[in-house]
């Protein structure tokens, strides 16, 4: 048999089913890998080894009785933005102090219901605000990949779900939960050579996930294959009365869609995504991806998303505005860090100045400003109108195409000391992903090739609202054609 940590999630389920391995043995293998590699990668903030082994033993007992569930015995990592009952949850911030949630997020509860084993809590940019995992109060995460000609230079895993993507790529988890507000699943997945999907807004409940920008936040999985993502999403998704924006729709068998093929599908190629100065390697990979789909019987259709170029500035009004409101709750009174002050206002101000990092404070300031008296119409209302136009562009595209294929990111993973000169440079990482958040649509990133330095590059598939099945079908076709088998330099 293969080494347990090399198994895909689907292969892991099969091996457990055939009793080739027990859940305890599988969990043990991942815990050993974490112990060996996490000191370097820093993907996990908290490892819950004892609890994982106990849960794995319980899983083995269920399987022995013939009561195995959909994910029984599968070791997963949980982004530290999901509240986990009895396990410290940090959101990558100092302001949560030693917060131990007295409740479980709906998405993680759904995974537990299906028998998954949680290995621990994964590092992330503070409050999921960042594209490099360098804003975490618990330290940066290292990308397990490195450049062929500069192997000692440490690269970022992307963000905000940098710990999730790095852990899965380095085989420190079979899959992981992540969240995506502007690209936080897809960009790190692309940077780490794995697959991740941001589902349609409303597909997964937001209840119990530390809120960043409520009209954009959406949970989703990251894993090594498209099929593994489909398996995980089926367990994570579903209606939840505790989130009023959760969609009351049946959850399809996403896994069945992965091998469906693309024959007869119309694939849109947005002209506006051919950015001036788009790296030739990215452009070539995009063309290659379209060629693969054409060869499988898809029709390639040029489309226009005329407002796409305004998506990032729209996002950087809407997201900080919602963040400034959501983060008002961190006041040092009810939970988390407290810095004492001379009076209540002084306590608030000292707590928030000490507890929030620089990027979070910057976004709170922007958000507070654009919502303040006299500026609300000029900024926030204007951005929500442009957002409506971005959504309308997609609605018009769906008259002509069934899915849209673009690059996932404008570059491969960058080094830890790059893109630090000004905040806007970092924000440009999400240029291809952010439109799907603004319009609420599903988007999947799948590895499709390597750049000249041997670093992974990904393609993105965007689909109609609640049509993740077509997204999985197109992603599956790209995955099969790409035959991506490269693996990172740092790996269990």
């Amino acid at each position: 048999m293969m080494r347990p940590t090399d198994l895909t999630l689907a292969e892991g389920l099969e091996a457990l089913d055939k009793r080739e391995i027990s859940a305890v043995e599988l969990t043990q293998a991942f815990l050993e890998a974490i112990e060996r590699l996490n000191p370097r990668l820093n993907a996990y903030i908290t490892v819950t080894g004892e609890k994982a082994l106990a849960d794995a033993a319980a899983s083995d007992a269920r399987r022995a009785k013939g009561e195995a569930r959909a994910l029984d015995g599968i070791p997963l990592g949980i982004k530290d933005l999901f509240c986990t009952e009895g396990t410290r949850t940090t959101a990558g911030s100092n302001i949560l102090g030693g917060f131990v949630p007295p409740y479980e997020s709906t998405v993680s509860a759904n995974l537990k219901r299906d028998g998954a084993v949680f290995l621990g809590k994964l590092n992330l940019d503070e409050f999921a605000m960042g594209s490099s995992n360098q804003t975490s109060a618990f330290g940066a995460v290292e990308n397990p990949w490195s450049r062929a000609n500069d192997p000692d230079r440490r690269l970022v895993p992307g963000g905000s779900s940098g710990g999730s993507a790095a852990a899965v790529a380095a085989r420190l988890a079979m899959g992981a939960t992540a969240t995506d507000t502007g690209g936080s699943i897809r960009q790190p997945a692309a940077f780490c050579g794995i697959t991740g999907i941001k589902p349609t807004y409303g597909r997964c409940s937001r209840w119990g996930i530390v809120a960043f920008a409520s009209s954009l936040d959406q949970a989703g999985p990251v894993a090594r294959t498209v099929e593994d993502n489909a398996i995980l999403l089926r367990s994570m998704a579903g209606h939840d009365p505790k989130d009023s924006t959760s969609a009351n729709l049946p959850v399809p068998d996403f896994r069945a869609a992965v091998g469906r093929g693309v024959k007869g599908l119309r694939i849109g190629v947005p002209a506006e995504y051919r950015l001036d100065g788009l790296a030739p390697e990215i452009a070539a990979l995009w063309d290659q991806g379209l060629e693969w789909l054409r060869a499988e019987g898809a029709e390639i259709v040029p489309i226009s998303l005329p407002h796409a170029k305004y998506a990032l500035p729209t996002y950087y009004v809407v997201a900080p505005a919602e963040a400034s409101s959501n983060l008002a709750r961190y006041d040092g009174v009810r939970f988390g860090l407290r810095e004492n002050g001379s009076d209540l206002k002084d306590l608030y101000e000292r707590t928030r100045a000490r507890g929030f990092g620089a990027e979070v404070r910057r976004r709170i300031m922007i958000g507070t400003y654009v919502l303040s008296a006299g500026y609300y119409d000029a900024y926030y209302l204007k951005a929500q109108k442009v957002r409506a136009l971005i959504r309308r562009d997609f609605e018009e595209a769906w008259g002509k195409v069934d899915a849209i294929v673009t690059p996932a990111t404008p570059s491969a993973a960058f080094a830890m000391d790059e893109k630090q000169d000004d905040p806007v440079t970092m924000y440009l990482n999400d240029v291809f992903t952010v439109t799907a958040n603004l319009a609420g649509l599903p988007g999947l990133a799948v590895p499709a090739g390597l750049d000249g330095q041997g670093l992974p590059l990904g393609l993105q598939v965007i689909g109609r609202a609640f049509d993740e099945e077509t997204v999985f079908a197109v992603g599956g076709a790209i995955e099969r054609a790409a035959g991506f088998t490269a693996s990172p330099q740092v790996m269990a």
Partner: protein
Amino acid sequence: MSLDAATVRRVANLARLRLDETEVEKLQAELNGILDWIEQLQQVDTDGVEPMAGGAPVEVKLPWRADAVTDGAQAEKVLANAPDREGEYFGVPKVVE
């Protein structure tokens, strides 16, 4: 629109963030950089466009629920993470003399 130092201090006060003077200047430059970049939204013709409300890809009516108590009597859980408490209350510095 360009933010002056006084506006940065005013916004920080609204956001309840203590800033020291060295931070004001740095933040002022960074915020102005971001706001200059955001300014391009003003080029978009949005006459007659209804602003998007919420994040749903299709307009949906939010559901109603019965106005009934579904939860409660969990004071210990609620207070478990409190930095300071007095009995079943959160403790804070004296507010009223």
